[in-house]
């Protein structure tokens, strides 16, 4: 079948699944049925709603606990159990980077899982894949309550326990057993030693992969159990596991849009948001899947049978999996890969790059919707300027303070990406670590900072990113790229919630109309293009033009 049609059908299937998932998520975030059990286990305090400030402080506190625990386990893994392959000490800067990476839901990996971390370390990272995903969804729930007009944003602990126990764990369990059935290993035995038919010895790493893989995909985490992530045959054995994975990558970010509509009571508004996000996703799929069916340029003058670009791809997953996966994984801030992005055709890189640069169509679990909210505030503001009225969003006036916060929130992302890229491209920190020469080398640096700032986690993995400079720099970028884009929108929602509601008038840009959809689409497109087109020229577009 035509790879583009096949890709669009899969996306349509995921949208259909996201609908009931969104209904389920809404129920989870609203239900009070298990309050008795939860408050008995966690304390009565969890039933008290808090202001947005307290909500955010609890979020930071919980994430700090996650970070410290992980640091202790990773830094001492050689003395701890569940290490059958005897993996040793990990340098402090890599421990720092890995801990930050998984706490922030990024899963940027400056290591190869099977050669670096023990089973206990990997399971600790799996725990972060649950808790960091729950953190993102909780922040989103708080935001949605604020936008619905509540001064109290809910209770962070109460939200996390419901998201974990009633939503993420049940879904992850279903996915994990399906992955196990598909052939993904689930064992605590150490590596198997095989003697090949030619008499050589081969060590085959394995581990508790199925449990890890399920939440890796569902929670837009993306960190692979094995180094080459979901291209590894034990992490993605066949078409069945492949389709399961792609569904899991996108379903919860899409479900968050549905939940946003239900939580704010603006279902029609959410449908417009979903349509804009879907339009961006389909554009990215098209500009990535089509150029990737072109053959490998390096074989142009050789006697090679006609074929799509197969470098970095696995035959069992099909040649079109790589580019489709590349778009899904960067559109959702997941970051797992189904093909090596460093071996994608130059123009195909524009899809993944724009996914991370926009980071809101659909974006990571919870946080994608939060990022999109920022764009909507910018859209109503620009629309307000055009017609000369004070902008409104969901019945609240958007004024100077909110706009200042939104502008700051918008600028963080490009500042981290472009600033970091400029610094590393100009110094040996980056220039000495590139793998491919020319524009692709520049793309490797640009991709690494885009991925860190977007909390994505994929990479152009030729980059030698295991250095102290890379570990520290991307660690800082991941932290800022995680918490500022949660803090600033929550602050905006807090400010809006404190204002009196205004009645809709003829001058209001109604948020449940196609006009609003087009306006938001245009704002995202133009702001994104103005910010990132110059570096896109220097990287993928230049590489395409000179070959």
């Amino acid at each position, binding site marked *: 079948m035509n790879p583009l049609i096949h890709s669009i059908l899969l996306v349509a299937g995921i949208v259909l699944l996201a609908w009931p998932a969104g209904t389920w998520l809404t129920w989870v975030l609203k239900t009070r049925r298990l309050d008795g059990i939860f408050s008995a286990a966690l304390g009565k305090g969890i039933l008290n709603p808090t202001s947005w400030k307290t909500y955010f402080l609890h979020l930071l506190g919980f994430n700090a606990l*996650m970070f410290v625990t992980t640091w202790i386990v990773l830094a001492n893994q050689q003395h701890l159990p569940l290490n059958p392959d005897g993996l040793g000490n990990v340098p402090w800067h890599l421990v720092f980077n890995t801990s930050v990476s998984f706490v922030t839901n990024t899963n940027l990996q400056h290591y190869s899982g099977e050669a670096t971390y023990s089973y206990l370390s990997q399971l600790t990272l799996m725990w972060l894949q649950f*808790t960091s995903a729950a953190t993102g969804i909780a922040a989103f729930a708080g935001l949605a309550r604020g936008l619905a007009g509540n001064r109290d944003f809910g209770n962070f602990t109460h939200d996390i326990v419901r998201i974990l126990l009633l939503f993420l764990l049940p879904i992850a369990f279903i996915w*994990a057993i399906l992955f196990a059935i598909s052939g993904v290993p689930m064992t*605590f035995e150490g590596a198997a030693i*095989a003697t090949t*038919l030619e008499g050589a010895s081969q060590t085959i790493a394995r581990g508790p992969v199925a449990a890890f893989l399920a939440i890796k995909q569902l929670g837009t985490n993306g960190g692979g159990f094995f180094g080459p992530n979901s291209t590894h*045959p034990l992490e993605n054995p066949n078409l069945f596991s492949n389709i399961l994975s792609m569904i899991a990558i996108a379903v919860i970010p899409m479900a968050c849009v549905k939940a946003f509509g239900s939580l704010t009571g603006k279902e029609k508004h959410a449908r417009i948001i979903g349509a804009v996000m879907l339009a961006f996703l389909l554009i990215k799929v098209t500009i990535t899947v089509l150029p990737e069916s072109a053959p490998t340029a390096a074989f142009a003058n050789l006697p090679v049978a006609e074929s799509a670009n197969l470098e970095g791809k696995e035959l069992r997953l099909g040649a079109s999996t790589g580019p489709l996966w590349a778009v899904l994984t960067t559109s959702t801030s997941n970051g797992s890969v189904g093909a090596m992005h460093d*071996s994608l055709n130059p123009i195909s890189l524009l899809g993944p790059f724009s996914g991370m640069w926009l980071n809101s169509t659909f974006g990571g679990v919870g946080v994608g919707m939060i990022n999109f909210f920022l764009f909507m505030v910018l859209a109503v503001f620009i629309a307000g300027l055009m017609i000369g009225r004070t902008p409104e969003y969901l019945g609240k006036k958007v004024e100077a303070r909110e706009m200042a916060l939104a502008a700051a929130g918008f600028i963080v992302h490009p500042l981290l990406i472009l600033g970091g890229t400029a610094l590393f491209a100009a110094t040996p920190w980056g220039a000495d670590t590139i793998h491919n020469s020319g524009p692709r080398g520049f793309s490797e640096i640009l991709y690494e900072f885009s991925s860190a700032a977007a909390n994505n986690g994929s990479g152009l993995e*030729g980059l030698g990113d295991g250095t102290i400079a890379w570990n520290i720099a991307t660690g800082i970028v991941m932290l800022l790229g995680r918490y500022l884009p949660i803090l600033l929108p929550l602050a905006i929602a807090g400010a809006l919630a404190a204002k009196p509601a205004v009645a809709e008038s003829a001058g209001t840009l109604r948020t449940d109309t196609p006009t609003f959809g087009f306006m938001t689409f245009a704002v995202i497109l133009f702001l994104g293009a103005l910010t990132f087109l110059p570096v896109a020229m220097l990287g993928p577009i230049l590489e395409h033009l000179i070959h």
Partner: protein
Amino acid sequence: MNLLRLFALSIAICGFVYVPAVLGFAKVVVPEKAVGSLVTTADGKIVGSRLVAQAFTTDRYFHPRPSACDYNGAGAAGSNLSPTSPELTQRAEEIIATYPGSGPIPADLITASGSGLDPHITRAAAIYQIPRVSAARNMAPEAVEKLIPSGNLVNVLELNLALDR
């Protein structure tokens, strides 16, 4: 205080309920897949995993796709070379030179997979290797071809096991 209890509860549920539940399921329902889909000989020796490519270098066997990690099952990796990289051209030329007088080479035989452990080659790539394998084994090419399964994907280890039988 609530946060500390939440922290403890999340570890307990993820580590001591979820993981054992998945492990138990896999052990009971799919015991062979759970340990890595290993292939063993009649006397119990592990030959490899049917999901993981291994090196075949002699003429007597079908060769897998090139591997950027030299088929290291404990350190998988792709080449991460750009499709415009001259290194790819050079690697392809070297491999093409080992098939003198043959027609256009199937692309999978000159491209490294993402993991370096792709267990499959295309059917065209298997057929392409028949002259070498049948000459090295003094077998009729037709007899070798009969061993190649009909689908588009051929598992190299399984095919080579069939050759040895």
